[in-house]
C-alpha cells in the first residue's frame, strides 16, 4: 500500500514536471517565434553603431554655369575629447590657441558644445594652414587628442555678387533637427539657413550615407567596416541669374547711388542720402529672375569665417535702417509712388470709371468737390495742362488726373453702401482690382522672408488708427483722401521691388502674373538634368488684352520727349529698342523722396522688365531711371567701355 502511494505521488510529480516543460516551451515559442523580429532588431541595435557619412553639398550656378556658390575643402582642426586627458586640457588648449591664433574661450566653447557625441571629434578651428597641421603632427605628444580633417565649406568665386539671395548654411536648428528628412543627420550638420541655400536645401544637401561599426558589449570596435551605404552628393542648383547681368545691375545701382550722394536735394536742403536700393531684372515671358541686386551689400564668405556680435549687428542694421543682409528687392516694402499709376489707371478702366478715350483735366492743384475744409491736392507740376487722356496722364505722371480717379473710386465706394460715419459697409472696388494685380500679397518668389507689401483697406486703417490715435489722428474711417492718396501710390500703400517687377511683367506679357523663380534647373553633380523649375502663373491682370496693350503703349511715351524719364533716356536708340517705363517719386514723411523706375524692353515684345529703387534717392527720373537705362544698355549690348552684359542667353 505504501509503495503504491509513493508511485501515485511520483506520477503526480511527473505530471508537474511535464507541465513545467510545457511552460518553458510555450514561453520559448513566444520569444523565438512570435516576438522574434523585435528581438532581432534589438540584437542589431546592440551590436551596431552607426556613423553617418555627410554628403557633399551641391553648388549654386548661374544660368551659364558659372559658379555662384562652390564648395571648397578646408583643413579643420578637431579635438577628440576621449583622447584628451582631463588634467592636460588647459595646457593643450593654450598651446593650440597660440598656434592657431584662436582665443582660448572660443576653443573651450566649441569643445564643450553639447552638439557633438562623445566619440565624435569636435572641430575647433577652420582653414588651418598646412604648416600648422605639420607642427601639430610633429608635436603630437603636446597635442593629445588633436587631429585634423578635410571639410567642405562654401566658396564664393564671384565675391560679393548676389550676396543676399545666395544665403547661408549653418548648423541645423532645433526645429530643423526634428524634420523628418533630417532625422538621421548629425546635429552638427550644416544645412541651408537663409536665401537659396535654405529654399533648395532638400536638393542641395544630398543624401546621408552611413558606416556601420560592429561593437561588443564593452563598446570596443571589432569591425569598423561592418556595413557601408555611401552618401549621395547633393544636386546643383542652376539659377536663372546671369552673373554678368547681376554684376551689371549691382554696379549700375551702386553708381546710381553714388551719383545721388552728390546730388543736392532742394526740398530737404541736404544731399541725397540714398541709403540703399534694389534692382530687379526679370524675363517677363518666363517669370524667371535674371538679376536681383540689393545695396548695400556684403561679402558672403563671412558666413564661413565666422563673425563677431558687433559685425552681425552692423550687417543686420535696425528696423528703420536695415543693413546689408536685408534684401531690399524682396524684403523691402516702400510706397510705389507714380509707378503705381498704370495699375490704378488699369483698375479705373476695368471698373469703367473711365475708358481709353476719356479726358480729365490736369490742373496744378485739385480739391475734392464740395470739400468744406478745402484740402488741396497738388500736382508735381504746378502748371495747368488742360484736359488729357489716361495715356498722357501716365506719360506726364499727372497726379491731379489720378486724384480724380481715386475720388471716383471713393464715390463708387459710397454708392456701394459705405457709411462714412461708421467706416463700415460698401465694396472696396479699387483695392479689389489692385489685389487682382498681385499687390498686398507675396509674389511667392523662391526666397524666404519675402515682404507682402500692403494694399490698405478700411479695416486696415481702422485697426491702425485705433492702435495709436495720437500718432494717426482721430479719423479711423476710410476717407476720400485715402483713395486719392492711393491713386498716386502714396498713403498706406507699399510694394516690394519684386512685386512691382511681377506686375510690370504682367503688362509686358499680356497679363500673366508669375510667382517669380530664381531657381531654373536642378542638375546632378555630373550635369544630368533632374528637373526644370518653372515659374508658376498665380494670377492674371483683370484687364483685357486691348487694355493691357493700351497701358504698355502709353508707357512708351514716358522715355520720349515730354515724358518724365525723357532726360534719362536722351540718346537711347528708342527706335530700334523701344522702352516702356514709368517713373515714381514716393514721399515718406521725414525722409527724402524714394526714387523708382520700372521699364520693359523692347516695348513691342518685352524680353526684360527692369525695376530700380533707390531709398531717399530723389526723383524717379533723375536717379532710378538712369540706373535702369544703364542696365538696359548692358542687356542690349549698347555699353561701350562701360559695364557690359553677357549675350542674351534666355530663350
Amino acid at each position: 500500500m505504501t509503495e503504491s502511494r509513493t508511485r501515485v505521488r511520483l506520477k503526480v510529480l511527473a505530471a508537474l514536471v511535464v507541465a513545467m516543460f510545457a511552460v518553458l516551451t510555450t514561453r520559448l515559442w513566444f520569444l523565438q517565434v512570435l516576438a522574434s523580429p523585435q528581438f532581432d532588431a534589438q540584437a542589431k541595435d546592440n551590436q551596431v553603431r552607426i556613423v553617418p557619412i555627410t554628403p557633399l553639398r551641391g553648388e549654386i550656378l548661374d544660368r551659364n554655369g558659372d559658379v555662384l556658390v562652390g564648395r571648397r575643402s578646408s583643413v579643420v582642426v578637431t579635438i577628440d575629447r576621449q583622447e584628451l586627458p582631463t588634467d592636460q586640457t588647459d595646457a593643450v588648449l593654450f598651446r593650440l590657441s597660440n598656434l592657431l591664433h584662436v582665443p582660448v574661450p572660443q576653443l573651450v566653447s566649441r569643445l564643450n558644445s553639447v552638439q557633438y557625441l562623445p566619440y565624435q571629434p569636435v572641430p575647433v578651428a577652420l582653414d588651418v594652414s598646412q604648416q600648422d597641421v605639420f607642427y601639430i603632427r610633429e608635436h603630437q605628444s603636446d597635442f593629445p587628442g588633436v587631429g585634423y580633417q578635410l571639410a567642405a565649406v562654401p566658396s564664393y568665386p564671384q565675391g560679393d555678387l548676389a550676396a543676399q539671395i545666395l544665403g547661408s548654411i549653418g548648423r541645423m536648428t532645433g526645429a530643423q533637427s526634428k524634420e523628418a528628412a533630417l532625422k538621421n543627420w548629425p546635429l552638427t550638420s550644416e544645412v541651408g539657413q537663409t536665401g537659396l541655400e535654405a529654399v533648395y536645401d532638400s536638393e542641395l544637401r544630398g543624401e546621408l550615407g552611413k558606416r556601420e561599426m560592429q561593437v561588443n558589449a564593452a563598446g570596443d570596435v571589432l569591425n569598423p567596416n561592418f556595413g557601408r551605404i555611401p552618401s549621395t552628393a547633393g544636386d546643383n542648383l542652376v539659377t536663372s541669374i546671369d552673373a554678368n547681368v547681376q554684376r551689371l545691375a549691382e554696379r549700375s545701382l551702386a553708381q546710381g547711388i553714388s551719383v545721388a550722394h552728390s546730388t543736392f536735394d532742394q526740398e530737404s536742403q541736404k544731399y541725397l542720402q540714398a541709403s540703399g536700393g534694389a534692382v530687379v531684372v526679370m524675363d517677363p515671358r518666363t517669370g524667371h529672375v535674371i538679376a536681383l541686386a540689393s545695396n548695400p551689400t556684403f561679402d558672403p564668405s563671412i558666413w564661413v569665417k565666422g563673425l563677431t556680435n558687433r559685425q552681425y549687428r552692423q550687417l543686420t542694421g535696425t528696423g528703420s535702417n536695415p543693413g546689408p543682409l536685408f534684401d531690399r528687392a524682396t524684403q523691402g516694402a516702400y510706397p510705389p509712388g507714380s509707378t503705381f499709376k498704370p495699375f490704378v489707371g488699369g483698375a479705373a478702366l476695368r471698373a469703367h470709371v473711365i475708358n481709353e478715350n476719356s479726358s480729365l483735366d490736369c490742373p496744378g492743384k485739385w480739391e475734392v468737390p464740395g470739400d468744406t475744409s478745402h484740402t488741396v491736392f497738388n500736382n508735381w507740376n504746378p502748371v495747368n495742362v488742360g484736359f488729357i487722356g489716361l495715356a498722357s496722364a501716365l506719360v506726364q505722371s499727372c497726379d491731379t488726373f489720378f486724384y480724380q480717379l481715386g475720388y471716383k473710386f471713393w464715390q463708387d465706394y459710397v454708392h456701394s453702401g459705405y457709411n462714412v460715419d461708421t467706416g463700415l459697409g460698401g465694396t472696396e472696388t479699387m483695392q479689389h482690382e489692385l489685389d487682382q494685380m498681385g499687390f498686398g500679397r507675396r509674389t511667392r518668389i523662391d526666397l524666404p522672408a519675402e515682404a507682402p507689401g500692403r494694399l490698405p483697406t478700411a479695416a486696415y486703417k481702422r485697426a491702425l488708427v485705433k492702435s495709436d490715435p495720437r500718432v494717426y489722428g482721430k479719423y479711423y474711417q476710410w476717407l476720400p483722401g485715402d483713395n486719392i492718396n492711393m491713386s498716386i501710390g502714396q498713403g498706406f500703400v507699399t510694394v516690394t521691388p519684386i512685386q512691382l517687377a511681377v506686375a510690370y511683367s504682367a503688362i509686358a506679357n499680356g497679363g500673366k502674373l508669375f510667382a517669380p523663380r530664381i531657381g531654373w534647373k536642378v542638375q546632378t553633380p555630373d550635369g544630368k538634368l533632374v528637373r526644370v523649375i518653372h515659374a508658376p502663373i498665380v494670377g492674371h491682370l483683370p484687364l483685357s488684352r486691348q487694355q493691357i496693350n493700351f497701358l504698355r503703349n502709353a508707357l512708351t511715351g514716358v522715355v520720349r520727349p515730354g515724358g518724365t524719364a525723357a532726360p534719362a533716356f536722351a540718346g537711347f536708340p528708342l527706335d530700334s529698342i523701344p522702352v516702356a517705363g514709368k517713373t515714381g517719386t514716393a514721399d515718406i514723411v521725414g525722409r527724402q523722396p524714394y526714387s523708382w523706375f520700372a521699364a520693359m524692353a523692347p516695348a513691342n515684345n518685352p524680353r526684360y522688365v527692369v525695376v530700380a529703387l533707390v531709398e531717399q534717392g530723389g526723383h524717379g527720373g533723375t536717379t532710378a531711371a538712369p540706373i535702369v537705362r544703364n542696365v538696359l544698355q548692358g542687356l542690349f549690348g549698347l555699353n561701350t567701355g562701360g559695364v557690359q552684359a553677357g549675350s542674351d542667353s534666355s530663350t
Partner: protein
Amino acid sequence: MDMPLPSARASVREGSPLRHVDFVLLLTALGLAVFGVLMIYSATHRSLLLLGDSPSYYLKRQAVFIVLGAIAMAGTALFDYTLLKMWAPVIYLGSVGLLFLVRTPLGSSALGSQRWFQIAGFQFSPSLFSRLALILMLAAYLSEIKWESTLREVLRAVAIAALPMFLVFIQPDLGTTIILATILVTLLVVAGTRARYLVVLAAAATLAIYGAFQLNIIKQYQVDRLIGFMDQSKNSQTANYNLQQSKIAIGAGGLTGTGYLRGTQTNLDFVPEQHTDFIFTAVGEEFGFVGAGTLLVLFLILLWRTYRIAMTAKDPFGTYVAAGIAAMFTIQMFINIGMTIGIMPITGIPLPFMSYGGSGLIADFIGIGLLESIRIRRYA
C-alpha cells in the same frame, strides 16, 4: 576502469550488473555535456581572442571536467548504492563540515560571497555536493521510518535539510538553498507525508521567507533582481540588464537560430555570465527554437529515465534517491532556463551538465552514477 560502451554490451557477461545499465540515460547526460562544452566555446572564444588568450581555454577545461565527471559517474555506478544508506550520515556530516570550512579563511570568495575552495587551479564548491549529500541523508532517514510518519519525524527531516540550507544561504547562495528546499519537499511528498503536514510546512516556509525579508537577511542585489523580474519593462535598470540581454539573444535566435558561432549577442559578450548561468542563451540564439526545443527534449528524456528508475527501484531508499536527483535536475533546469526567458527571477543556478564549472558538472555526473547504481541493482 571499464566504461560500459554500447558496442561492449554483447561482451558483457550474462547476469552481470552491467547488463542493466541504462544507456539512454547515460548517453543523454553525456550528450548534454558535449552540447554544453560546444556552447561554452561559442560563448567565450571571441572574447578570449580579444584578450589574447587561447580561444579554447574554457573548452579544454570543461572537457577535462567531463572526463573527470564520467570517471566519477562510473565509480559511483559500480558502487552498491544500498551501502550508501549506512554511509549517508557520514557523507552528510562531511558535506556540512565542508560548508563550515568554506567560511573559514580556507575558502575563497568573490562578488561578495564565500563559496569555494581553491585547489590546484581548480575551484571546488562544496555547496554543489551538498545537494547529493542531502538527497542521500533524507532518503536514508525517510526510508527508515514507518509510513504515515509523525509530525516529529517530519520535523526531524526538515531539521536535517535546514542545516545545510542555512549554511549555503549565508554564503550567500540563494540558488542552492532553493534546490535543497525542493529536494526536501519532493522527498517528503514521495515518502507519503500527510498533506496537512505539508500545508503546515508551506505556511512555516512562507513565514520564514517573509521574516528573511523583514530582517534584511536577503541581500540588496537579490531584492533588485526580484524587482527586475517583477517589472521587466524597465530595461534601463541595472538589475534588469542581464534579463534584457538574455531575452534579446534568445529572441533573436528565432525559429532556427543564427548558426553555430554566428550568434552576435553570444559572440559579442552582450549576455553576462553566458558560459556559466546563461549558457542557455547561446543555445537559444545560435540554434533557435529548434535547438532550444531539442535541449528540452534531452532533459525530458533524462528525467523520464530517472522517473523509471525511481518507479522500479527495489527499495524505498533507491526510489527516494532517484526522486531526489530528479527533483534536483528539474528545479535547476526549470529555474535556469526560466530565468533566461523571463519567467523566473535571476538566481545563480547552473544548468545541469551544460554550464561551465567542474564542481557542478562532476556532481551532476555522480548523480547519474547513483541512478545507474539503483538501476543496475533493481533486481538484485
